[in-house]
């Protein structure tokens, strides 16, 4: 799997497919602060948030879900389009990848260098992010009213996170791309009133852990920003 998709794309290109050029660009990962708030009103102060990453792959296919976005004028920018069928996100042609380990401290405010992706020029639609075995590890304290819940948790997605929006026309002189892991998004579903038998580590059968896991696999928790030329 690793480099096969890109290799296929290169062969396709060489055999008369769409004209593309080889290109490389740096990839960074960023987090965004130690304080987040959940949908259920918990304020979470993180002391640790480490994403163990393994690979990022860029694809031609656009993201698939239609969702309602207001205000209206945003719609054309943010509403994803898709063929009308669950599961019809088609990654399409592989247009770039970087494979290599990174233990990203998401509490730092500056982007962390991950590596240099090799790929092809052309229009991208999405990316795929693969976590390493250790997944995403977090620790901290959640507070709400008079309650305080120290917690730790670790979740590793069973599959790569697919369908992360990355709509960009890759040129020959790209300055780089940043993948921000939005911890507010990841914690949004976690209700620390439902931690089950344990908060540290979070009971894996609890709704709180379930919400954490759903946050990690939510492709909209990953925000891709291409640096302006």
């Amino acid at each position, binding site marked *: 799997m690793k480099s096969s998709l890109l290799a296929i794309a290169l062969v396709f290109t060489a055999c008369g497919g769409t004209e593309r050029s080889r290109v490389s660009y740096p990839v960074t990962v960023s987090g965004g602060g130690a304080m987040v708030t959940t*949908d259920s009103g918990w304020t979470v102060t993180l002391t640790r948030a480490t994403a163990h990453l393994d690979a990022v792959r860029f694809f031609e296919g656009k993201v698939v*879900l*239609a969702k309602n976005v207001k205000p209206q004028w945003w*719609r054309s920018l943010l509403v994803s389009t898709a063929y*009308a069928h*669950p*599961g019809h996100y088609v990654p399409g042609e592989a247009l770039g990848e970087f494979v290599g380990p990174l233990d990203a401290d998401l509490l730092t405010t500056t982007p962390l260098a991950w590596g240099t992706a090799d790929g092809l020029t052309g229009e991208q639609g999405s990316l795929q992010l693969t976590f390493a075995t250790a997944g995403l590890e977090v620790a901290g304290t959640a507070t709400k009213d008079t309650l305080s819940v120290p917690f730790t948790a670790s979740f590793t997605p069973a599959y790569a996170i697919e369908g992360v929006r990355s709509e960009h026309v890759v040129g020959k002189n790209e300055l780089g791309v940043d993948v921000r892991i939005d911890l507010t998004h990841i914690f949004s579903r976690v209700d620390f009133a439902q931690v089950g038998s344990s908060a540290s580590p979070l009971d894996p059968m609890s709704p709180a852990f*379930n919400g954490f896991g*759903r946050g990690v696999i939510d*492709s909209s928790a990953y925000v891709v920003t291409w640096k302006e030329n």
Partner: protein
Amino acid sequence: MKRLLAVLAVVALSGCGGVGELSLTTWGEEYIEQEIPATEFEDGFTVRYTKFLVVIKDFTLATKTGMKGPSQTGPLVVDVNKLGPIELQSFKNLDAIKWDRVSYGIGPSASATGSGAVAAADVDAMKSGGHSLWVEGSVSKMGVSKTFSWKFDIDTAYTECTNPDFGEGVTVPTGGKAEVQLTIHGDHLWYDDLQSPDAKVRGTAISAADANNDGVITQDELKAVQLTSLPLGQYGTGGASSVKNLDDFVRALGRTVGHFRGEGECVTTAK
């Protein structure tokens, strides 16, 4: 003379300058007319619909080159639980060309009229309630059956419709008649993932949502089921983080019921 005949033959073959007809129909297929069998469900349920009302509107023919063709006369309420296909409109004297930009919508309309065998009271209820989709039926397993009646106001545009067998849009033949069937897929409301290609058709979570166990699964009961209470491998939302409970989930799936000429698809956009 020979040259003239040759020119005429070319014109006839290419269809240039001719006109034809188009019949616009809709069909709920066997899944909506009869049942979704247990073999389709991952967990052995069956679903039988007794009502499957949709408001179909804004059917439009166009071409990639910018040529605009005729549009649907007005929004129509159709019950695709009734035996189909149901003809919605017939377009006559159409330019006999390939209309490769075909679109339509499923959304509420206060001015919709009934089409086919649909009860007048149902049409009124759809219009006054601002609904675009109203499904009623039962979900059953091993002798236990629960009923449901869910109404949605979702407004979805289906554009750039294409079909793997027929290609983009529809080709109207000179002097002939083409058919465009807007096919409604009733199994989609039971999928367990909004994005994954491995989505399964399931009934367990929705059937269990009947919290007061009165045999009726209401939308309030669906709303009370947070996705965080369901197994992590099921009811994935892809990037739709606003989908938090089962009612949100079925509502999101409601945007996927519209298809094009069978298994064909369109680009969907929420309005």
